[in-house]
């Protein structure tokens, strides 16, 4: 009967597709995972032209995702990962990030001396910094009545900006705004102190428009929001669309965030991976990062090669590395994570 033939054909088709899909497995390649658009688009071709190594770029949307995948599979299939510093730290402690042999990465000399003094990994023994920056307040200077100077301008907003503020939704930065406002460490795990932060942030939630990690700058551009918590590089995206947008680091301080590259311990292509790390540390990649994704890079050679007009248009790029190091870095919280996570749940579920 016709439908029976259909069904068996369907099953056969399904099985063949399954087979075909599995046979279409990639051969020997260098596999890296990065955020989308975080690396020059033509890097794989140029890399292959120079070293002959085939590069496959997988994408991840958040640190947490790639961490979940890598922790569950011990990094199977990946050679190099781009993750933020607290996660690189965790990967190292879990034995998934390999110890780096600097001898194989001569271009590491391109980094600022300060880049070797990062608290999560002094000496860059298991991670190489790729981009860094601060987290602060991004706002419409033409809309807000008074320019913000403190984290409390976001957490206890003036009447004209009530309901027009956003905060970052990633737990560490969400809490950091409160912690910095109260003069605490961004790596605080004392339950009593966290309770204070919680109270402050639950109050702040009442006047908050939304927690937003991705579209906060476009909310500024469209006028939906007037003052947002933002990473400096992202504020630049807003500034590019609307020059009235400005970035400021509140007087209580900021955190120094660092996006890094780690080599997976279980990688079967370590030599190729080293060549990749070395290639990334070239001056022109650093220059690309600044000019295309508007982030600062710890690559000294790269920063010095950029178009100087960028520094005028995006003032937050001009901050000196020595000044960056004044800010505390987010570290993995270890066992303190449970308490921290509970407080965050209390805040996000508060009515």
């Amino acid at each position, binding site marked *: 009967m016709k439908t029976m033939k259909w069904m068996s054909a369907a099953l056969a088709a399904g099985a063949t597709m399954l087979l075909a899909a599995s046979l279409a497995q990639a051969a020997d390649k260098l596999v890296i995972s990065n955020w989308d658009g975080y690396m020059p688009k033509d890097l794989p071709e140029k890399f292959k032209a120079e070293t002959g190594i085939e590069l496959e770029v997988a994408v991840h949307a958040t640190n947490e995702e790639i961490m979940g995948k890598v922790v569950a599979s011990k990094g199977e*299939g990946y050679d190099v990962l781009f993750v933020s510093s607290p996660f690189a730290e965790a990967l190292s402690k879990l034995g998934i990030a390999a110890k780096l042999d600097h001898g194989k990465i001569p271009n590491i000399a391109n980094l600022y001396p300060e880049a070797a003094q990062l608290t999560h990994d002094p000496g860059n023994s298991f991670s190489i910094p790729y981009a860094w920056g601060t987290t602060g307040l991004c706002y419409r200077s033409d809309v807000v009545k008074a320019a913000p100077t403190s984290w409390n301008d976001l957490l206890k907003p003036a009447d004209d900006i009530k309901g027009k503020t956003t905060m970052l939704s990633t737990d560490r930065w969400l809490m950091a705004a409160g912690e910095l406002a109260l003069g605490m460490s961004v790596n605080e795990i004392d339950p009593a102190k966290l309770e204070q932060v919680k109270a402050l942030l639950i109050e702040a939630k009442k006047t908050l428009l939304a927690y937003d990690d991705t579209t906060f700058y476009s909310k500024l551009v469209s006028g939906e929001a007037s003052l947002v918590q933002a990473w400096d590089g992202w504020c630049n995206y807003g500034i590019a669309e609307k020059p009235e947008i400005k970035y400021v680091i509140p007087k209580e301080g900021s955190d120094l965030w660092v996006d890094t590259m780690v080599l997976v311990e279980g990688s079967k292509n370590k030599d190729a991976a080293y060549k990749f790390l070395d290639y990334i540390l070239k001056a022109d990649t650093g220059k690309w990062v600044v000019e295309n994704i508007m982030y600062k890079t710890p690559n000294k050679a790269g920063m010095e090669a950029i178009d100087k007009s960028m520094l005028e248009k995006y003032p937050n790029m001009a901050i000196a590395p020595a000044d960056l190091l004044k800010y505390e870095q987010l570290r993995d919280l270890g066992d303190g994570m449970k308490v921290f996570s509970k407080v965050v749940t209390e805040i996000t579920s508060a009515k």
Partner: protein
Amino acid sequence: MRKAYLVLVYVFLYTPIAVLMVLSFNKAGLPTAWTGFSTEWYGRLLESPKIIAAARNSLIVAMASTFIATAIGTLLALGVERRKASSGLDALLFMPMIIPDIVLAIALLSFFTLVKFSLGLHSIILAHVVFNIAFVCAVVRARLKSFDWSLTEASRDLGATAFATFRHVTFPLIWPAVVAAALLAFTLSIDEFIIAYFTAGAGQGSTTLPMQIYAMIRFGVTPEINAMATIILLMSFILVLLAQRFNRGSMPGT
């Protein structure tokens, strides 16, 4: 009256779609502010092999998992409905629907890692079949609850084999439910992200469209992504029209 209501419902279903189609022609890259008409995003899309490859992968995964899950799920439903109600069996069949997908995702990845099973598009297909079986089974079982088993008994009494009974009696009667179930499974699979992300192989070769889009939303949904959604929609629409003309007379309800 019925028609008017249906039209209203379709308006509800398609309004956001209309919005995203319009936005795909937005000049600037912003997801929320209209700045002028432009087709550059469609051009950019065609130059982006990653997106096209991801779309192709999604289709492969969705079709394969739908075929397999529909076949297995239908047989499962038949087997289950014929016997006495068993709460244990019901619970088992219900589980894939209620297990939070992050749990299933991590569970499968851990399992695959443990048994050293290779990852790739095929592992995603296997994973998708797991939850699709449950949905297919549920839809077909709902149909089978009002099924007249005396028809199959009669067929057997008259000497037909089990297989022939299935082919000529049971299957034609439950065919619409099976199609509905397959449609459901396909829809669930083509848009599924978490399980696909975790059970995929490490490289680009097993990236599906939802995975690609999730990674691209760093800046919100750009017109480029909307352009892709519009193209997918138009292609699906054309497919449906073609299928409709082609299959007139052999589809459910006819």
